[in-house]
């Protein structure tokens, strides 16, 4: 998956789940998600589940740091760096 695709997917997820669709189109790839509380502990856990289930990327505990989650640009870079995403299959459900 290209970085553009990753970025688009992450942006869409954050808009839909945490910003009620972001009707005013305020979310940019440098919006400070942590500082503004868009990503709090609950939401970040949901995002991690999305990355795992939809992009096949498991972020290790050591990767859950501010640099990796401060904005969409850093999340995209982290997902890209964590290697070639494959679709995760959960035994018994797919």
């Amino acid at each position, binding site marked *: 998956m290209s970085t553009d695709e990753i970025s688009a997917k992450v942006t869409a997820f954050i808009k839909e789940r945490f910003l009620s669709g972001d009707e005013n189109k305020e979310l940019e790839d440098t919006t400070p998600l*942590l500082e503004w*509380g868009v*990503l*709090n*502990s609950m939401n970040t*856990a949901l995002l991690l589940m999305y990355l795992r289930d939809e992009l096949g990327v498991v972020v290790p505990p050591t990767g859950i*740091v*501010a640099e990796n*989650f*401060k904005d969409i640009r850093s999340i995209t870079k982290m997902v890209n760096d964590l290697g070639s995403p494959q679709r995760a299959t959960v035994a018994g459900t797919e």
Partner: protein
Amino acid sequence: MDFDLTADQQRRYDETLAATREQLGDAPSGADGYFTRQQWKVAASLGLTGLCLPTEQGGGGLGALDTALSLEAFGRGCRDTGLVFAVCAHLLACAVPIRDFASQEIRDGMVSGLASGDVIAANAMTEDDAGSDVGRLAVRARRDDDGAYVLDGEKSFASNAPAADAIVTYAVTNPKAGFLGVTGFVVPRDLPGVVVGEPMEKMGLSSCPASRVRFDNCRVPEAYRLGAEGQGGAVFQHSMAWERACLLAAYLGAMEHQLARCVEHARRREQFGRRIGAFQAISHRIAEMKQRLESGRLLLYRGCWLLDNGRDHVGAIALAKLAVSEAAVANSLDAVQIFGGAGYLSAAGIEQQLRDAIPTTIFSGTSEVQRELVAREAGL
């Protein structure tokens, strides 16, 4: 699938139950109503203050499930639930993150004291404006030129703090990083700038003193940091996984004891020429108490097992915490009703169980927060 305890587990459970009954059964608390160092030392001599700490440092080397089983026996054997809670908070919310995240220097020096009972620890996370929402901390830790941190601000609810030698706490090191800008520390009580408040009056768990803790320009050397800078949220959640799983096991034990008393009472007490247990209103109440206890127990053992096996455990432990705490409150209300007027009077110790059970749906994350976690795991 095997639902039996192993021979080792059964032996440890039986020994802990017998020893706590004998040595801490209804051990009187100190003159001020709080647990004494002597009681703490007895609990430590039974291995309870170090169950899951490494054996090389005097701990029991147990995993979460075995720790829970021992705490269940403790909760069943000891009538002073405040003391049981105090030991659990020390072990699970404090010693666990020190064991897993302290620098080697501090870990080597402190863990043996935590296990032996020489060091009592308190956990201070909650603040006036940050309860369930621990991402909103106001306590700050500023880095000084020499690498030390300077802590400023006040924590509002720390069990054990008036008796503590060490305080595990969390402060904001990077305000721009939101919940990922929080860092954990273990702060020796005697550092200048640590101000522990007077014990606060509360509804139950009365032998466990709780107070506010203020940090006034308190310099904490870097070695006392827990984990990396910004990792505090994860350190805290790790400690809460252990606390939600293992502390609530003590309440399984307390409920076991309570149920036995209710059965005994319902068999003995006669009204209208019959044992009250012969009234279906009473016998079914007891059946429901049993059902809540047993289902909570299965959820809790499984949550511990997942934790021990390094599997996803957050949702399972949330379910267990929710089930056991709600059961503790419901069963305690039932017990008061079954005992009638005697249940309401203090002498029988039945109303005290209710007062000790109420906080279970609040501490270590409220029931509402557990339901949020469960809903999240369910895909909402």
